[in-house]
């Protein structure tokens, strides 16, 4: 494998990739919690949670809103750092290799 020291761009890519994987794992846990509750404790899903809504609706809407929030947070974290020439945008105009 490549033994040279990574360029600023490459280390930024690695950092982004690490953040992405962590956020995916975190979201997967919240999603798995939802599936597990639906399967093993469906009665709990009927319990009243926030704003007069039951847990099923709160959790379900929450999962959608959380996805949108995560996406925005990730975008903030992915902003090109100062000193990284060209950022992560490997330009491939024209669609040719």
């Amino acid at each position, binding site marked *: 494998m490549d033994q040279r020291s990574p360029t600023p761009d490459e280390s930024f890519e690695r950092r982004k990739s690490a953040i992405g994987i962590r956020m*995916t794992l975190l979201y997967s846990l919240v*999603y798995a919690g939802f*599936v597990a509750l639906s399967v093993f404790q469906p009665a709990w899903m009927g319990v009243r949670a926030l704003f*007069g809504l*039951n847990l099923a609706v709160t959790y*379900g809407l929450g999962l959608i809103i959380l996805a949108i929030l995560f996406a925005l947070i*990730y975008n903030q974290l992915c902003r090109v750092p100062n000193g990284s020439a060209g950022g992560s945008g490997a330009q491939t105009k024209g*669609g040719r290799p």
Partner: protein
Amino acid sequence: MTVVVFLVFVALVLAVSSYTSRRARGVGGYFVANSSIPWGINGIAFAGGYLSVASFLGICGLIAFFGYDGFLYSIGFLAGWIVALFVIAEPMKRRGTFTFSDALNRTFNHPGIQLAAGLSVLVVSLFYLVPQMVGAGVLVEPLLGIPHYWGVIIVGSVVIVIVAGGGMTSTTYVQFFNGGLLLLVAATLTLAVLARGVGTADRPLEEGAGGVPSYQFRELPVRVQGDSVEVALDGVRTVDRHAVIDRYTGDEALVFYRLSHLVPAVSDGPDGYAADIKGRTVRLDGTSGPGWSVESRDGRQFVRIEEWWRLDTTGPPRLVETQARTVRSDGEVLLNGAPESPANRIRQMGGVSALPARYGERTGSVGPLRLLAVFADRDTVVQLPRATTFSTAAGERVTIHYEGALSGSTFMRPGLMFPLEARAGEPGITTLLNRLNFISLMLALFFGTSALPHILIRYYTVPSADAARKSTIVAIGGIGLFYILTMYLGVGAVASGALNPETSNMSAPLLARSFGEILFAITSGVAFTTVLATVSGLIMAASGAVAHDLMANIVRRPVSDTAKVRAGRIVAVVVGLVGIVLGIAFRDMNVSFLVGWAFAVAASANLPSLLFMLFWKKTTAQGIIASILVGIGSSVALILLSPDMWSRYGFDAATAPMPINQPGIVSIPLSFLVLVIVSLATQNRPQPVPRNS
């Protein structure tokens, strides 16, 4: 009106396509829109391509008929985008140029990978294409009054024109146009639902094009003695009794009685009668027919018909009117006791029959959270269309549509469509299999989204990895908003009392019709452009896979750019034609079910290799090829051996070799496992020289 609006939408789509097609020159222009689509437009195009007719019509219908369980699809369909954004989007753009196989093959440059990946794109695209085509037919049949196959042919032809003519550029702008319209229509309908609120008497009585008539189902007080009932109404006789297990609750028996009763009739010309059947004047030819006959009583004329009523013993015992379609042993079909005709059609059902005391009969306008809270309240009672089918001793096949009452607290939590709770008397293995089926579906939706071919190709239409990420974020915002709105469209459809008991897919257009013909026509038109947008993306993906990946392996010599584009256009025409044939052949297949399967095949075939190629250094070309082939093979085989397919072959579903319908829980881990094992076993094989990256 519907026809005019419908034609306007198709014309708009073709105009967008033709205006943008001139930019589709050259191989980059045809396959990836010169990678010059701005990220905002690409993001909405993601939404327009991804939100298929299954999301719009399918999910609204499932929520309207099964409550919260329909919304589970919304959650799963959106959650998968997290994997797409965080893991797939940027590496896919950085590593590839035209197709998903480019990215997969960048490290290995192995012809086998290109072949397997191209094959996988083709299989998944076709799997996904069938439900879209079927959906188009389902849509035009009631809307335009033309046969199912015409819907399929229209979609196929328009899409062939879009894709073969304008390639990825036209496809992108058609999807952008559709994504914007879809969000606009869903938001408008939601605002209308919130402004109207919920009322216990909301049963629209007007009748219009494409809709079904409304009707207030009657009740008859009865005295129950053992298995027989006594009805205190002149001229009524009980003909038949039939008891079935309620498949929605599992343990309660439903009892139906066939009553022979009289409906008022007047002579309508020399050779027929006009009878009053379920609120409609239905013309009957002659003085008798299969199951009906004219009778005179006290100088007045009546038609004697036979109809099925459901025994309800929750309060004072009473019979509640139902609707029934009866196929007699001689092949004659009767609807509600008389021949089906434009006047005697299926009546709409559903509605809210009780609200919490503080609202009285109407809530008035409500906010978005309040509306959901009203539906989730245990004092709210919703009436949902339910159906049961059985055979009688006389050899008739009877399908009864009745309204089932349900408390809001049951309606708005999981369990109506996926029976997850253990039921009294149910074997433990059945509960376990139901749960596995559900977990399997949720797994396929989560992992399938980012592996769908028409999603993967959209990473190459933007100029940079940054733009790929940003457009994915726009997609998540737009799609997330849309799926939240599906909840309102679904419960709004129940509140409108305008459900067609024979097809849940029409719930969203029928909800729109309860607000007026214009909204109905626009909603139906947008539903149709949704099919066009998704099918264009799928055919584009298939066209790229064949022209770019498969051809390179079959021809085995450098192919000129012009030849590639020509091949791409020819493939678009061929796949479009194949889609038309399959759409007509599979017309009776359940649309949502097929989409779930397409996700499972995509997740099993593509995702393991994508993830491992990015994150596991020991991955080998052989591992990737084996994983893709085993992923496709196992998921398709398990689908073919599933209980649902087994019953389609005419066998008993319980004897199917695969006990659950959803293959993902087996095929996804299997594909991962094969990749690891084959990669470890082929560590010492010489790997092809990597391309410079």
